[in-house]
């Protein structure tokens, strides 16, 4: 019998789940060390991207000469609960996945989904026009389309041959 190979939707590396685990770990270490030292462990900058108990959605991003596309899997979320904000070099997607009636209450429960609030700050490869951004939510997938700032649009420079 061959089972369908389980492949996580997340690749290896600095994945959101390990960030969450690391955040929990840091919290636990801080709690331990506070008994020995007067101040908590020094904080690495990327530790601050997630608080204990939060989760991070996964992201795909692509770019062409004029646009940047970002696609985030956010199943089961009310679009009203998603906040998309853009600065020149950063896209921040925040929101909350609310626990459904099915996943709470009496009885036996096996739970794999993560619920609660999330904040994902995504550095953008080039500066964009914050006034020209569209966001669309369809079938559990959020797609954000950003227009690059005219100044940062890459320009093709023709190579000329020296005149004889």
């Amino acid at each position: 019998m061959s089972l369908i190979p389980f492949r996580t939707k997340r690749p290896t590396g600095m994945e959101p789940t390990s960030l969450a685990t690391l955040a929990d770990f840091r919290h636990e270490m801080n709690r331990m060390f506070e008994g020995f030292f007067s101040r908590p462990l020094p904080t690495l900058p990327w530790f601050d991207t997630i608080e204990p108990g939060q989760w991070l959605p996964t992201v795909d991003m692509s770019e062409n000469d004029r646009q940047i596309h970002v696609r985030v899997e956010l199943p089961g979320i009310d679009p009203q609960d998603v906040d998309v904000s853009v600065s020149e070099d950063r896209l921040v997607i925040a929101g909350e996945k609310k626990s459904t009636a099915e996943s709470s209450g009496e009885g036996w429960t096996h739970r794999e989904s993560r619920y609660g609030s999330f904040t994902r700050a995504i550095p953008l490869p080039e500066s964009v026009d914050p006034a020209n951004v569209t966001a669309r939510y369809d079938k559990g997938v959020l797609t954000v389309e950003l227009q690059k700032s005219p100044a940062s649009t890459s320009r093709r420079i023709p190579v000329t041959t020296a005149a004889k």
Partner: protein
Amino acid sequence: MVTTTSPARDTAPQPAAAGREAQTYQPTVDICDRGAEVTITADVPGARPDGIDVTFDDGVLTVHATVPARPLPGRAVIREYGVGDYRRAFRLGTGFDASQITAECRAGVLTVRVPRLAAVRPRTIEVRG
């Protein structure tokens, strides 16, 4: 107790159609047993309701969701997830009413409700004084 499984007759992952990403994923699920029914909610972002098959055969509930490819234009900068069909099977056992199973898909979440046969539902027995 519901166990997640692949049926024995599932010998291999389904070959994907040409031009599609060949990978099939197991969706993240929540399973709740409330006595009168078992509810399975599966995250299937990108799946259209008419592309989802839910079958119940010999105590095994199988969910298969077809996910159309959605390539992003341009060159990839970040790729954290793959896009492909979802498939997962659950061994529920006996005592369920297959004719009353319902399934709905909203915002990329599939909810399947599998009610127990009335004869096997938990009952509270009134004690007379």
